[in-house]
């Protein structure tokens, strides 16, 4: 459960940084921040998915 909250928190903070940077006229930097945040979240999701996969494998395939 905590991973979901972590991802949600990252999303909120990245959105705030994006809006702050955009307001100050640094749109290119704002987009980079968004992209980097997306990549970080993606890595976290991939790790979670691989854990899930491993678990499924141990439950159904190798009993």
């Amino acid at each position, binding site marked *: 459960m905590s991973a979901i909250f*972590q991802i949600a*928190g*990252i999303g909120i*903070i*990245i959105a*705030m*940084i994006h809006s*702050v*940077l955009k*307001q*100050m*006229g*640094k749109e290119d930097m704002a987009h980079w921040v968004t992209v980097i945040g997306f990549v*970080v979240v993606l890595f976290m999701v991939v790790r979670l998915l691989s854990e899930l996969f491993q678990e499924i494998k141990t439950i159904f395939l190798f009993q």
Partner: protein
Amino acid sequence: MIKLLGVVLILFAGTMLGFQQAAKYAERPRQLRQLAHALQRLETEIGYGHTPLPEALKRTAAASPEPISSMLLSAASGVEREEGLGFQESWKQAVLRHWSETSMRGSEQAALLRLGSTLGISDKEDQMKHLRLALLQLKAEEDAARDDQGRYEKMWKSLGILIAVLIVILMV
């Protein structure tokens, strides 16, 4: 418990970093104005007081606030020392040595160094003209700095806190 302490420390550090950056942007126009005042005073000393240059620098330094006054003082003392540097060399050394104490940037430094190569080598009309030129450049820089301040001061204040929170969330 120790985790909470770390969180607090990171938040504090990020906030302070943001505020420090913001303070730099707030300080620059103020120092530029002070420098312009100092140059104006120097112009008066040279043009109407006919004061010798080291003396004029010292009087100007006495009337200026801190980072600028020490710069002018060391420029004056460089000329008066035993081995006696030329004014241009002394001025250059003083500007370079004290520059890191100010919040100003390279363009002001270039204007000041150019001014240093013309002061004290010609008649007073010429010197006043060069001082006025430097004043104009500083005025333009001050306008640009004020623009930057309005734009970036707030940004850095919120950005510091936000980045600290992001680091905390990533690490917890």
